[in-house]
């Protein structure tokens, strides 16, 4: 087997092939004042885009966020509650702040992370959750009142006056809440779903994932390597390390090229593995066309893959965590790694002068790299008093950022120095590093708990994660590049060896191998203001303290009371902070306080993607009957019956109301002859030497003695004694029966019969096959039905009343030799037959019947006329077999044989199903013939109060009978069999109806059954 790696360039490590109309301009132009040199963008091509109506330029390889930063735009969004001005916090999918409405019109896409949106020429983005503009947002008034809007304040107020909640408070809250907007237009894009299979799924294409893929790929295993980014490389794209004698990204490119050439490896960029489900099934979303203005013709926007894998290696890296301090949310304040990513990968800085605030060595790298790019780094502020000097800039050891300033973007930070004095440091951006959290997300999707690793002060994947999943690299707490390569290769080899495959680890070049060196530090305790933990939901340190004070102390209470971690980023950068603060408040360790686990999906997935192509007319497959084409040509109106489309009635020229058509069809059948396509009824072939015995088990009434060439009505019960289905079963030969089921229950009945066959009576010689589709079956009904059929049935077959009496069946030929089956059964109450031929001849047979029937003024009739006639004849159907009705209710109590064991016979003897005043099926006729019987109406004894306590039953089916010139109905009435002739009230307050109806025999037409036997 080999994979087809899609050769559209998206799989190889090149910047986005995004520029359908990219202009070659050379250079960044003056507008991109914060563009640096280098990076993995293509400065030779310029892409135009707009944000909030203003035009900007960027380059292939940019994200919307990097391009905005290049253009000196730091302000990108507003927070949920306080509408605080916000910029990027991250450079990837964990972004809580920089959410925009991307694209316009029906493609408008709310809450899109600017940090992952690939730039294309003509991209249009709009800020959201602000009014009238991002800079001047009226709702920012909330920030002024933030002291009143603390965690859970809404649980304590808005209770009075009682009526004000729905009318006043809630509408205001709802309008203010929410983030982006939907367009309210149908999503015009298409989405695919697909299925992939592999030995090893590698989640993440950073150093550990690439090393793992090389290891497994070279060993010949079927490998899927997926990364959410549009480029493989992971952190290596944002770092400047060398790997061996190559710079990092060259090593990545070489590895990807090698993998791409392997037929057993499928490299999937722009593909997020977002859920770990049972038994090695993972869900993945591939963003096929999101980097393009519109998807190419016939191509999907995204694909939802279901991946079946034997082993999984989690190489998802780690996410840096922030430190909480007063006003730590101003645009320009971001994770130190993000600042580094923007500089190294995208050649962008958020400001010309920056600073770094860290509790670990890794933060210093940001300073080093930005200095190397020519950006001025004002200082590295390190909480550790013994912080090492790494970058060539001022180091403030033992210092903390205690406040910041700048209304719409950072101007300066206020630092409390080790000696207790304060100093303002001017900077337009601050990189913050509080250490790293392994990206354990997928490992907890099956409710397995991560475990605490004291050395890195973070949770790592625990032992009870999804079976078959292991982790490597930073996702497992091995943070250095060397460790990532090494563990990636080793874990891949181990996974394969677990599968009995041979694999050896690959030779690893030397590279960065720094030990994580940090002192845990969660929040700055100085200051009285607000320090944000969850930036999107505006959860601050104070909120956590309040939750503690009010005894919402378990992690779940904390989360729910404060909404911490409930935003669109699912707490990727905030959960740990909240947990650590609660731990401190309760005096417990972090692992004692709790863990945070994650629910799928890893990152949010469009509903369209989950839906795939099952939309609109293709929501479910359509089943067409053999006469469908003829019906279309002859004015049929169709109705959905399950997945079937059935002709409901046929409109003749001049008919303006459906009732005209239906009445005509009914009269024609009752007076002459009509044809109805009844192919949809389930047909089950029952064969074998024990077939008759088997039918005795599944039907409540007896079948063993049914003669060959005869058909019998059968009532099928569930084991609880309630009616499950009914139909007719014909005995074609000693060991061959054909059963019909109702259209709706065909599948259930077949399944039930296989259960009875395989699980209850495994030694019976009986075989079942569903043959519903194989035969086109038409009901030919009416006094002239025999005459019509005699023109078609080959003459050697006698279908006279004597030769083929009511309930007869026979295999015959028609039209000069076509094999067919003929049953003399009737749903309408008229003399009637059902004729079946192989489906391919169904169309021709319909046409022939209509042609030959002309002399009898034959009509085609639809489900509506069928329904009218079965009500007139008092036959129960789906409306009556509603899952609560037993044989007694149907007037068939005596059919349930006590002489044999059948499914449901024992339980149908229970007291509650045999009450003296049990419901009986009866007919109803309005006393005043102009009144209408309404299905769903309830029955009251005449003169009794109209309320539930006096309910006597209900009407199940109703119609207008053109034969009786009256509305009629069927239904269930308490002790109805003994109330014939009584006038009862039919009430339907829902439709404002209360009429008197007479209780009558449900067989309105031909109760003696003369016509069917004619």
């Amino acid at each position, binding site marked *: 087997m080999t994979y087809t790696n899609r050769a559209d360039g998206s799989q190889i490590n090149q910047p986005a092939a995004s520029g359908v109309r990219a202009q070659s301009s050379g250079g960044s132009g003056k507008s991109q004042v914060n563009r640096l040199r280098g990076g993995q963008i293509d400065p030779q091509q310029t892409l135009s885009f707009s944000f909030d109506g203003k035009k900007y330029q960027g380059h292939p390889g940019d994200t919307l966020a990097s391009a905005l930063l290049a253009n000196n735009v730091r302000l990108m969004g507003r927070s949920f509650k306080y509408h605080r001005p916000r910029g990027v916090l991250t450079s990837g999918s964990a972004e809580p702040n920089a959410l925009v409405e991307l694209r316009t019109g029906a493609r408008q896409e709310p809450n899109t992370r600017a940090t992952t949106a690939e730039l294309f020429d003509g991209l249009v983005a709009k800020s959201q959750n602000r009014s009238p503009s991002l800079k001047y947002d009226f709702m920012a008034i909330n920030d002024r009142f933030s002291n009143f809007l603390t965690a859970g304040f809404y649980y304590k107020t808005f*209770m009075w006056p009682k009526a004000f909640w729905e009318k006043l408070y809630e509408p205001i809250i709802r309008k203010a809440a929410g983030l982006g907007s939907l367009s309210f237009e149908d999503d015009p894009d298409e989405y695919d779903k697909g299925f992939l299979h592999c030995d090893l799924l590698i989640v993440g294409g950073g150093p550990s994932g690439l090393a793992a893929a090389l290891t497994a790929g070279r060993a010949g295993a079927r490998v899927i390597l997926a990364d959410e980014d549009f480029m493989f490389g992971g952190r290596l794209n944002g770092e400047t390390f060398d790997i061996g004698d190559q710079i990092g990204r060259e090593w990545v490119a070489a590895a990807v090229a090698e993998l791409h050439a392997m037929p057993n490896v499928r490299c999937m960029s722009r593909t997020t593995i977002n859920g770990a489900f049972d038994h090695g099934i993972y869900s993945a979303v591939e963003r096929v066309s999101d980097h393009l203005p519109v998807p190419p013709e016939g191509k999907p926007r995204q694909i939802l893959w279901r991946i079946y894998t034997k082993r999984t290696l989690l190489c998802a890296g780690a996410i840096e965590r922030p430190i909480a301090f007063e006003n730590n949310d101003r645009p320009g304040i971001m994770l130190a790694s993000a600042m580094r990513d923007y500089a190294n990968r995208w050649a962008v800085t958020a400001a010309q002068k920056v600073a770094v605030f860290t509790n670990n060595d890794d933060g210093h790298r940001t300073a080093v790299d930005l200095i190397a790019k020519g950006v001025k780094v004002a200082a590295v502020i390190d909480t550790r008093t013994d912080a090492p000097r790494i970058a060539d800039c001022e180091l403030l050891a033992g210092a903390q950022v205690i406040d910041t300033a700048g209304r719409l973007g950072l101007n300066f930070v206020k630092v409390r120095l080790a000696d207790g004095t304060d100093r303002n440091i001017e900077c337009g951006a601050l990189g913050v590093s509080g250490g790293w959290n392994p990206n354990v997300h997928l490992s907890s999707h099956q409710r397995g708990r991560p475990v605490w690793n004291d050395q890195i002060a973070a949770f790592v994947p625990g032992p009870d994660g999804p079976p078959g999943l292991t982790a490597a690299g930073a996702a497992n707490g091995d943070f250095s590049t060397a460790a990532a390569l090494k563990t990636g290769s080793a874990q891949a080899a181990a996974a394969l060896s677990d599968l009995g495959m041979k694999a050896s680890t690959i030779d690893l070049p030397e590279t960065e191998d720094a030990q994580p060196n940090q002192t845990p530090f969660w929040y700055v305790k100085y200051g009285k203001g607000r320090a944000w933990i969850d930036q999107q939901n505006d959860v601050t340190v104070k909120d956590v303290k309040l939750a503690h004070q009010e005894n919402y102390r378990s992690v779940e209470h904390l989360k729910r009371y404060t909404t911490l971690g409930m935003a669109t980023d699912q707490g990727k950068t905030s959960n740990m902070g909240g947990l650590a603060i609660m731990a401190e408040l309760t005096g417990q360790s972090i692992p004692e306080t709790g863990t945070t686990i994650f*629910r799928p999906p890893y990152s949010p997935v469009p509903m369209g993607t*989950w839906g795939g192509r099952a939309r609109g007319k293709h929501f479910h497959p359509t089943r067409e009957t053999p006469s469908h084409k003829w019906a279309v040509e002859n004015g049929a109106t169709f109705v959905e019956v399950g997945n079937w489309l059935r002709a409901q009635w046929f409109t003749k020229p001049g008919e303006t109301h459906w009732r005209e058509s239906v009445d005509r069809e009914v009269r024609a059948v009752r007076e002459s002859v009509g044809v109805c396509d009844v192919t949809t009824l389930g047909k089950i072939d029952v064969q074998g030497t024990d077939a008759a015995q088997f039918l005795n088990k599944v039907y409540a009434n007896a079948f063993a003695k049914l003669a060959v060439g005869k058909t019998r009505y059968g009532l099928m019960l569930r084991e609880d004694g309630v009616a499950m289905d009914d139909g007719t079963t014909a005995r074609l030969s000693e060991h061959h029966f054909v059963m019909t089921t109702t259209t709706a229950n065909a599948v259930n009945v077949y399944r039930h019969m296989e259960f009875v066959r395989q699980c209850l009576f495994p030694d019976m010689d009986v075989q079942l096959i569903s043959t519903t589709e194989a035969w086109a079956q038409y009901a030919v009904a009416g006094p002239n039905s025999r005459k019509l059929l005699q023109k078609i049935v080959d003459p050697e077959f006698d279908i006279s009343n004597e030769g083929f009496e009511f309930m007869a069946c026979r295999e015959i030929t028609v039209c000069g030799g076509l094999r067919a089956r003929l049953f003399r059964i009737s749903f309408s109450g008229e003399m009637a037959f059902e004729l079946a031929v192989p489906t391919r001849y169904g169309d021709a047979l319909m046409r022939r019947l209509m042609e030959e029937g002309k002399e009898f003024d034959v009509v085609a009739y639809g489900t509506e006329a069928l329904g009218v006639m079965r009500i007139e004849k008092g036959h129960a159907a789906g409306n009556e077999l509603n899952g609560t009705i037993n044989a007694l209710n149907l007037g068939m109590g005596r059919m349930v044989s006590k002489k044999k064991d059948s499914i449901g016979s024992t339980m149908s003897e229970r007291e509650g199903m045999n009450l003296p005043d049990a419901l009986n099926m009866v007919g109803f006729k309005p006393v005043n013939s102009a009144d209408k019987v309404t299905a769903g109406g309830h029955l009251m004894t005449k003169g009794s109060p109209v309320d539930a306590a006096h309910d006597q039953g209900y009407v199940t089916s109703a119609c207008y009978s053109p034969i009786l010139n009256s509305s009629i109905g069927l239904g269930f009435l308490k002790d109805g069999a003994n109330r014939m002739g009584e006038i009862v009230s039919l009430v339907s307050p829902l439709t404002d109806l209360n009429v008197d109806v007479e209780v009558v025999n449900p067989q309105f037409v031909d109760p003696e059954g003369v016509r069917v036997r004619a």
Partner: protein
Amino acid sequence: MSYSGFRVIKEALRGHTGWKPAWRNPEPQSSYDYIVIGAGGHGLATAYYLAKEYGKKRIAVLEKGWLGGGNVGRNTTIIRSNYMLDGNEPFYEFSMKKWEGLEQELNYNAMVSQRGILNLIHSDPQRDAFVRRGNAMMLNGADAELLSVEQIRARYPFLNFNDARFPIKGGLAQHRGGTVRHDAVAWGYARAADRLGVDIIQNCEVTGFRIENGVCKGVETSRGYIGGNKIASCVAGSSSRLMSKAGMRLPIESTVLQAFVTEGLKPVLPGVITFGAGHFYCSQSDKGGLVFGGDPDGYNTYAQRGNLPTVEDVCESGMALIPAIGRARMLRMWGGVMDMSMDGSPIIDKTDIDGLYFNGGWCYGGFKATPASGMCYAHLLATDTPHEYAKAYRFDRFRRGYVIDEKGMGAQPNLH
């Protein structure tokens, strides 16, 4: 302390230092008159009404985890009383009336929001069944309205009226239906019960029952033995597990029902809407997320998570009904374990063991039932007679043939 807008302002002006714990963390006493097992919505409500309505004292609620952590902590927040059968509709309408005054009674804003629920109709037989149901509701004093396609289109123009596989043909609305902030229900009852002296004991798992001569004397717990005169199981989702410790088999199986929420969106759906031709129902939270769900996964499980086929089925149905949500993103999925009873209706009854009572089998209808369930269970515990609205919810209805099978699916719990 009483909550009010005035109090919020007062506390804001003094740095929120005055807020008291919403409930205590009491140590368990050696015995109680009433022990309710399970501090979910129903358990807390039961304890509250026992104290409030029936004046009982010495009440404990034992919770193996954190209060409100059962299905009241993970559901789709819908309240409604749109049932068809005699055994059900009066009970749920009673519950609806309790919801309508709940927040004032509890002094806790649970955001009871009667924005309406709409069940869509896609076929004539479905309409007939809904008419019957709507009439049953009205005959029981609840509200119901049959809506035409035009009325629905006016309110929800973005539903699929263009190329639907199963076109919308109408709908049954209950305008008093709506949603409630689910966690706040648990917290509101907990705080109110605590203020009446109920001991809510968290992290206290019941590990066994002490049964002597057919009488239940108390419970073994992870925090020691606790004696009780009346022991009330109220742990829907774990009912079979708990009652097996008393040697009981139940007419219940456990399955998982998944639910989903999208990212926050500016207002889309004013009320609750249910698709009649697929497995999808949806509302929008006050925060802006579309909260939706469908049918249970269908296999027995105690794991609070589901699998992809159900996720996809629900979302396909959602897209079929509302193609305009294609670009809204699903943020999170979760699963709750349901007590699926054999007829789809709950049980509030004594058991054959004296002193041991049972409340469970709520299928996925438990949340909306919370106030009525609490009242009826408290009534049973206090008086040893069934509450008038819960008199059909007996154990023996299965043996005797009086099942309350709203959906008509028979003894197959995963189909209810």
